[in-house]
């Protein structure tokens, strides 16, 4: 994110080290933080901009996380909510890595199975496991299919 970029630079100041998640689907910034496990009680210094004008998307959200470089498996979870998101890893104010997000084939321990009868909703030592299909997320234990409202099922 350079200072010339009017959509990001003016609203949220640049960071020295960390991660900028750009082109988040408008309104999903807080859910993106949730899926990353970043809550009000975490230590990260955050800047969030929502409903920012974007040429490409109309409106978008931007999240900046200081002093934390997101790992690939963390990043890919974001794709569930914001498939067009772009990840910029920043070191010393420079973008050292730029990548898109890719929906993983299998999601383990990311979303809760909505089926109350599912064995993953008990005290058994297993993580929920979903296979990612075009039509939704398929629970590999109980065959439940999640089609929408994924944000509310994030663990």
């Amino acid at each position: 994110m350079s200072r010339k970029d009017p959509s990001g630079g003016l609203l949220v100041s640049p960071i020295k080290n960390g991660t900028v998640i750009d082109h988040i689907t408008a309104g999903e910034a807080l859910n993106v933080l949730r899926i990353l496990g970043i809550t009000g009680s975490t230590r990260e210094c955050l800047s969030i901009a929502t409903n920012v004008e974007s040429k490409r998307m109309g409106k978008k959200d931007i999240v900046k996380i200081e002093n934390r470089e997101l790992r690939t498996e963390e990043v890919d979870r974001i794709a569930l909510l914001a498939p067009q998101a772009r990840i910029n890893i920043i070191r010393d104010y420079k973008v050292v890595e730029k990548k898109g997000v890719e929906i993983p084939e299998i999601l383990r321990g990311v979303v809760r199975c909505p089926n109350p009868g599912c064995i993953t909703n008990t005290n058994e030592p297993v993580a929920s496991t979903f296979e990612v299909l075009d039509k939704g997320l398929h629970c590999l234990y109980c065959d439940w299919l999640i089609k929408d409202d994924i944000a509310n099922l994030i663990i």
Partner: protein
Amino acid sequence: MYHIISIRDFERSDLDYLLDRAQEFDTGNYRPGMLDDKLVALLFFEPSTRTRMSFATAMARLGGRTIGVDSVEASSIVKGETLADTIRVISSYVDAIVLRHPKEGAARLASEFSTVPVINAGDGAGQHPSQTLLDLYTIRQSMPVDGIDVGLLGDLRYGRTAHSLALALSLYGVTLHTIAPGGLEMPANITLELRERGMEVVEHPNVEEAIRELDVLYVTRSQRERFPDSASYYNVASSYRITTDLLDGVKDRLMILHPLPRAGEIDPAVDCTPYARYFEQARNGVPVRMALLHEVMR
């Protein structure tokens, strides 16, 4: 290791192979003591006398032995213990585990913690693959399964036997006819999955409209607890009841199947018609389960 967990794990060739094996056991073409050094645990965390006895019979016919706990004992054993731990321990005693459990996905979980093969004998509203195999086996005894017309009647929303049979039939180019009371229709995602597998699925408002087209009519159990009150249960139950009047003009080879026990879905007068095949179907549970037990332990 070979587990039998879900009908989704099977390709057509696997099903055909198991059905062929079942036929060999059915016709007595096997050595009676073939599993005489084997011990199987029948872990039934919810009652199902019929399924349990049929596995026990299958094992005894192969010369093997079973240990087991019924639902009451099981619930006291597992007090405070996870299924994962129970399975770890029991699998160190035996050569295979047959599991029935109220939670969906329990058998999949068990297979991840077991050191011996696991056969799913029903997990909650989930899968019950040995039932599906015996349903297929019963059909195949009378006619080739390819391209036939199969009707599913009754509670298709919660009826797991219907879902897993439909999935299996989708491997055989079968046309599926669904007949369900309002609110108990086949879930949309199952219908979608069947259609994605290339199956033709036709919905009918009542059984009269469909029955003359059918080669197989599979009647499911109506569970009273799915209905808001007993009056609406009896209403639905009586409008979906199979009686001899309905059988006018049906195909000669029509077979009526039911996973049993029935609760009034089929008039007992139908039992003595040539279409009634549900008792034969129940008997087929033994050779099919012999084939499964033998397959996982050989």
